[in-house]
């Protein structure tokens, strides 16, 4: 071979920076006895009635392709759910596409929309996949940094200030991963006004919508004048504890959904039928189990916030998702140094905030999708480290208890998915 593989790789792919926390992932995998608050998925297993319905569908022989758009019955159930919850009406025959998780829906939407050099506005800190997916689609990422002073909420004037003639779309994700921030209706209305004034498309990833603990989630597409310019993405992973099933959906303008479907039919054909059958059961009968899980997350949210306050770490109140984003600057360490110290000295894994963009520096992401026992023990260990680093605790409000840590060896591969 005259050229190396590296030279042959598409430069767009080659130039995408590797995940900033890869090294940290490897370190976690090598350490034993770790309690992890670094997991971005529910600790609940999919409710049994959903698993049982899926098993039944296999017994009945549902093992074939579905329509490219997904099972019509599932699309109808999605349309009913959105109409009932947010009063947004989508035609299940032309305005909904069932995808392999929101990840694929986002990829399809960006590929169908972004032309080389188009600018995509992304509030930061942001989910790790957004920027690379935009780059793969040929777009240019324009970050809109947010911080604690604004409660990690995007402001309309930030959007307005970032707009150039090349700006094509705004990518929203509220409730937010990694911060847990939600956008209230008033703020969203202001942002929507800017979107309308500048004729922007909005892609709204609302995968955490059901996990809203304070106030009500506002669906971007439900705002006046927004349905026509919004691509709404959602799925089943977080609300029904179905991450591994990989099933989500996109809703929007019929012509645009047709364009996404074109890419989908040639590159994916359809989402797996087994997962679609399970998703249908989730929409039909999953509400009680989902509400139970939401109540449980909310209790843990209080526990986590209380613990950070006690140990002297400032933490803004996350109102959605299952993440808290405490500020660790008072320890004098960077995000990565803190996460590393916490892992090595106390065997607790959290994700350094800078993994979610430069504006996440000074913070760490703690997922409270963990049992109360694990959570309590992890927070006690974290408090020990923080105290050693010279931060004065507020009060000690809970007596120490010992619990066995979750063994590192329990994880499926000890590796990382991203």
């Amino acid at each position, binding site marked *: 071979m005259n050229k190396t593989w590296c030279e042959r790789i598409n430069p767009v792919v080659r130039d995408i920076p590797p*995940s900033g*926390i890869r090294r*940290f*992932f490897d370190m*976690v*995998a090598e350490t034993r006895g*770790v309690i*992890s608050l*670094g*997991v*971005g*998925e529910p*600790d609940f*297993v999919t409710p049994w009635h959903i698993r049982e319905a899926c098993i039944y569908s296999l017994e009945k022989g549902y093992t074939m392709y579905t329509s490219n758009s997904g099972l019509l019955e599932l699309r109808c159930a999605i349309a009913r759910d959105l109409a009932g919850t947010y009063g947004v009406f989508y035609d299940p025959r032309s305005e909904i596409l069932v995808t392999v998780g929101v990840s694929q829906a986002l990829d399809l939407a960006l590929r169908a929309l972004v032309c080389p050099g188009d600018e995509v506005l992304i509030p930061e800190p942001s*989910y*790790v*996949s957004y920027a690379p997916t935009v780059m793969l689609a040929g777009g240019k990422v324009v970050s809109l940094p947010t911080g604690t002073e604004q409660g990690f909420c995007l402001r309309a004037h930030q959007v307005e200030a970032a707009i150039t003639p090349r700006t094509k779309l705004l990518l929203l994700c509220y409730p937010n*991963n990694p911060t847990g921030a939600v956008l209230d209706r008033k703020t969203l209305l202001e942002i929507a006004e800017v979107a309308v004034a500048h004729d922007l498309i909005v892609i709204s990833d609302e995968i955490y919508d059901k996990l809203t603990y304070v106030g009500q989630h506002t669906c971007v597409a439900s705002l006046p004048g927004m349905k026509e310019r919004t691509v709404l993405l959602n799925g089943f992973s977080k609300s029904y504890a179905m991450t591994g099933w990989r099933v989500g959906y996109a809703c929007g303008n019929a012509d645009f959904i047709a364009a996404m479907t074109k890419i989908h039919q040639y590159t994916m054909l359809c989402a797996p039928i087994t997962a679609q059958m399970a998703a249908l059961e989730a929409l039909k009968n999953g509400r009680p189990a989902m509400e139970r899980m939401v109540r449980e997350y909310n*209790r843990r949210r*209080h*526990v986590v916030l*209380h613990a950070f306050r006690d140990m002297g770490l400032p933490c803004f109140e996350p109102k959605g998702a299952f993440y808290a984003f405490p500020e660790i600057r008072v320890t004098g360490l960077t995000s990565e140094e803190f996460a590393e110290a916490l892992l090595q000295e106390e065997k607790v*894994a959290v*994700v350094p905030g800078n*993994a979610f963009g430069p504006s996440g520096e000074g913070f760490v992401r703690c997922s409270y999708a963990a049992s*109360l026992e694990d959570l*309590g023990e992890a927070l006690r260990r974290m408090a020990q480290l923080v105290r050693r680093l010279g931060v004065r605790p507020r009060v000690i*409000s*809970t*007596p120490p208890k010992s619990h066995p840590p*979750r063994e*590192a060896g*329990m*994880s*499926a*591969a*000890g*590796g*990382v*998915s*991203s």
Partner: protein
Amino acid sequence: MNKLELLEFLEDNARLTPEEIAVMLQTDPGEVRRVIQELEENKTILKYITLVDWEKAGEEKVSALIEVRITPQRDVGFDAVARRISRFPEVRSVRLMSGAYDLAVFIEGRTMREVSHFVATKLATIEGVVSTTTHFVLKTYKQDGVIVDDGEEDRRLMVTP
């Protein structure tokens, strides 16, 4: 404060401290203590118990479900006989049922012989008891909402975005 939610917590885990409950219910520990005491005093909270896997503890135990048919008595119906049966320490639970029999009585003993002896000499001979049918428990899969030997563990990767 939401008493039902408080009871839900304690039913799931009686070892939660008032401080821990207060954080989850967003109230103060003193208030939690006061409500718990009130619930204990009015017997809403009957007892705090531990669910034990006796097989794992190496203890041989035999339990049986006894279907009991009884003749209801004037004025007291099923209550007098049911309460009488309830007083035996061998009896773990007594419930009035709809359907083909009247009382479902759960009995625990050390051996099958001991349990049958109890049924034959104590239970069946109570005045008002018409008949008994004994079903021995072969294996317990789930008890009080807890799956025995679940086998479902946390299989998530340690860190995911």
